[in-house]
C-alpha cells in the first residue's frame, strides 16, 4: 500500500515512518508541507493520503483540496490526523472529503491496521 504522508513535525514523521514502513511494510512518501506534497503526489500515485491539519502556510484542508485537483488524485481516500479534535471540527474534516479523522496522540503499533480498516470499509461510513 502506498501512503502519502503530510506532516510538518519531523519527529512525528519519524514515528509514523517506523510504524508504517518498518512494522506494516507500507510504501511511504513523507512530506513536510502541502507544497512538497503537491510536487511529489502525482509521481508517487498514493493509495491513501494521511494529512496533518495544523500546518503553516497550507493547512491540511487546503492541501487536500489542492491535491484533489491534480490528475489521478481526485478519488484517492484521505485521512486527517489532528491534535485539536473538537466535535465540530471533526465534522468539518469529514465534510471536506476525509474518510476518517485520527486523534493525536495515536498508537503507532496499530496505525497500519487502522488505515487498512478504513480502506476496506465502505466510503460512506466514517
Amino acid at each position: 500500500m502506498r501512503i502519502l504522508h503530510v506532516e510538518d513535525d519531523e519527529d512525528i514523521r519519524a514515528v509514523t515512518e517506523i510504524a508504517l514502513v518498518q512494522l506494516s511494510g507500507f510504501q511511504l512518501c513523507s512530506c513536510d508541507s502541502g507544497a512538497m506534497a503537491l510536487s511529489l503526489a502525482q509521481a508517487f500515485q498514493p493509495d491513501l493520503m494521511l494529512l496533518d491539519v495544523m500546518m503553516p502556510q497550507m493547512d491540511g484542508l487546503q492541501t487536500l483540496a489542492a491535491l484533489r485537483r491534480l490528475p489521478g488524485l481526485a478519488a484517492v481516500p484521505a485521512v486527517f490526523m489532528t491534535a485539536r479534535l473538537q466535535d465540530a471540527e471533526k465534522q468539518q474534516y469529514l465534510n471536506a472529503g476525509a474518510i476518517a479523522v485520527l486523534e493525536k496522540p495515536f498508537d503507532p503499533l496499530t496505525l497500519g491496521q487502522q488505515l487498512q480498516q478504513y480502506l476496506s470499509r465502505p466510503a460512506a461510513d466514517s
Partner: protein
Amino acid sequence: MQAPITPANEAQRLQALQALKLLDTAAEPRFDRLTRLVQQCLDCPIVLISLIDEQRQWFKSRQGLEACETPRDISFCGHAILTDQLFEISDARLDPSFADNPLVTAAPFIRFYAGAPLTINQQRIGTLCLIAPEPRQLTPQQRQNLRDFADAVEQEIIDRLQEQAEQELKASRDQYQALVNNIPGITYRCQADPNWTMLYISGSIDPLSGYPASDFIQNKLRSYASVIYPPDRERLEQAVAQAIAQRHSWTLQYRVQHRDGSLRWVEERGQAEYDDTGQVRYLDGFILDINAEKQLKQQLLNLTAHLPGVVYQYQQWPDGRAAFPYASAALKRIYGVTPEQVKADATPVFAAIHEEDLAGLASSIEHSRQQLLEWRHEYRVKDLNGKVAWMAGNATPEAMPDGSVLWHGYIQDITASKQSFLALQQANQQLQLARERLDTASELALIGFWQASLKTGELWWSPAIFQIFGFDEANTTPSVALFKSTLHPDDRQKVALSEQQALISGIHDVSHRIIRPDGSIRWVHERARIVTDADNQERIMVGSVQDITERVQLQQLKDEFIATVSHELRTPLTVIKGALSLVNSGQLGVLPAASQKLLVAAQQNSERLAHLINDLLDMEKLVAGKMPFLRQPLQVQAQLAQAVHELEPFAAQYQVQLEVTPVESGLQLWADSLRLQQTLANLLSNAIKFSKPNSRVQLRAKPLAEHIRIEVEDNGLGIPEAFQARIFERFAQADTEQRRQKGGTGLGLAICKALIEQMGGEIGFQSAAGQGTLFYFTLPAVNADK
C-alpha cells in the same frame, strides 16, 4: 289761525302740573261727577277738564268727546290759561284767531267755547271748559256757575293731592314699622333707676320675655328689672353703674327669664344720655337675643374640647396689634396660656414659639395676610420645661371692614407624626444613599436594571442601560420596540424563545448580542423574573442587563488558548508516546532489562498525561456548558456489552473478570452514547483497578419508575470513609501513593457526575472499607409505550 302763546312762567307752570301726578292717569269719579253736573246745569254737550302740558292738552275728565287729548297749538284752552278771566268765544267762525282752526273747520266743529282756568299753587295748569257746535253766549249767572264749578274742580285736585300724600306717608310708616319689627333686637329708652323704668321698648320684647311691650312702659304692670334673671341682676347693675360713672358705653351679657320660666341669653349694648349739668337723663340701649348663638358656642365648646388641636380665630390689625378673639380650651395645652389671656393680646402665644421658627412663622402669616390666601405652617413650640413639640396650623383669612384680617383656623400637635416623618426622611436618605451606591456599583459593573409592564408594554431603564446600549439618556425613550431593534439578527430567535419561556417559568435568562447605534457589537447577559406588582396586581417583569462583552471575549480567548495548548501539548506527546510504544513493543530490537523497565514506566506516564489532557478538556467543556450532547434512545443491553468489550483487555491486565447480568430485553434509556460509554469506561476501569486479582466486577441494569439504574460493583478495598465526601470533587484522590499506583487523573468521577447530571440522571455509590464498592447512576428511561 293763531296758536296760543306760551306763558312767561311756563317752566314753573309745568312743574306745578307735574307735581299733581294727574297727567295720563285713569278717569276718576270725583272729576267725572263734576263734569256731568256741569253738562246738566249749563246744558252744554261737551264738558272737559283739560290739563295743558308742553305739547298737548290732556283731558282728565271728559263728557261728550271721544278724543282724550289734542295738540296744544290748536287748543282753545291754551289761550284760556293765559289769564285768570273766563275765556269765551261765542262763534269761532267769526273770530279770525279760530276761524280756520281744524277743530272748527272739521269735527267737533267748535263754534262756542268757554274755559275757566284751573289755578293750583298760583299756576294755571288747565281749564274746566264748555264746548258747543253752535254759537252761544253765557249769561252772567252761567259764567259764575262755571267759575264755581272750576273752583270745585280745583278743590278736588287739592284734596286728591293730599290724599295721595297721606297714602304715601302711611305706606312709608308701615314700611318703617315692618322694618322695626324685623330688627332682631329690642331698642329701649329707660330711666336710670333700679327698676329700669321704660319710657319706650320695642315690641320684640314680647317673644323674649313673654310679656307685651306695653306692660313695661312706666312699669305699668311690671318692671324690666323683674324679668332679669336674679343671679345676673347685681352684676348687671354694677357694670352699668360703673359704665355710667365713667361715661362709657357698656356691652353685657345676661339672662332674661321668660314668662314660661325658661332662661334666654341676651347681649345688651347701652349708653347713658346726660343733661347739661352732667346728670343722667335716661339710658338708651339695644338688647339682642343671643340665645341661639350662646347655644352654638356651647356646642362648639363641647366639640372643640374633644379635638386634639386648637380651633381659633386670630385677628391682626394694620398697626400690628394681634389677638385671639376666640380659641378653644386646648390652647392651654399647646401654648400654656388660656383663651382669656390672649383674647385681647396674642403676645403670650408668640412667646411660646421656638425662637428658630419665629421668623418663618411671622413671614408665613404676613404672606397669608397680604394675599388673603390660606395659611399653612409647621413650627415648633417650647413649653416651660423647654420640651419641644411640633405644630401644624392652617387657617383661612378674612378681610374685616376695619382693615384687620381675621383668620379662622386649627392648630394641631403633630409631634408624633413629625417624628415618624423625620425618621422616614432619614430612612429615605439612607435608602437614597444606598441607591446611589448601587447605581455607582451597577455603573462600574455595567449592570443596568429594567422593568416592563406585561400589560401596557411600558419599559423603564436605569441609567446604566442607556450606557450599555449606547443611547443618550436625555433623548431616548425606552420601549420594547427600541430594545428589539438593538438585537443582533442572529440572536433574535434566542431572545424571543427565552421570553416565551419566562411567561411560563417566570424566569428569563439569556445572553445575546446587541448592535449599538454606532454599529459596534456588544454581548449582554439578561436575567429577569416576572413578579406581580403589590400596588395594582399587574404582572411586571423586572430584570438586569450586564455588559458581558469583555467576559465573552475573555471566554473566546480562553477557548482559543485551550485549543492551542491542547495542540501544543499533544504534538510532542504524540512523539513521546509513539516512540515509547514502538520501542517497548520489542519489534525494533531487545533492550537491556533495566532500560526496558524505565521505558515502560515512561510509556505509562505518557499515557496518563494523554488522559489528563483529555479529561481536562472534557472538564473545561462541561463547566462551560459547551459539551455537546446528542441524546437518543439507546438499547441498554447493547451499551453494557460494548463497554465490557472495550474494557476487557484492561481487565485482563488486572486478572479481573467482567460480568454483565442479563438485562430485560427491549430496555432503553435516553442518553448520548459516547458520553454513556465514557462514564461506563470510567467506572469500570476504576472498579478493575481497585479489585483484587481473580475477583469479579459486575455490571447490572435495573428499570426504575422513570429511570434506568446502572450499577458497577466490585469486591475491592472499598472507599475510605474520610474520602467519601470528596469523591466527586475535581482532582480528588484518596492519596498520592494510590495515584502513583493506580494512575488516573483525579478528574474521572467529577466528569462522570457532570456527564450524568447533564443527561438528566444522578450518580452515587455505596461502600464500606474492605467490603467493595457499588457505583450506580440513573438515566431517563425511554417509555415502552412511546
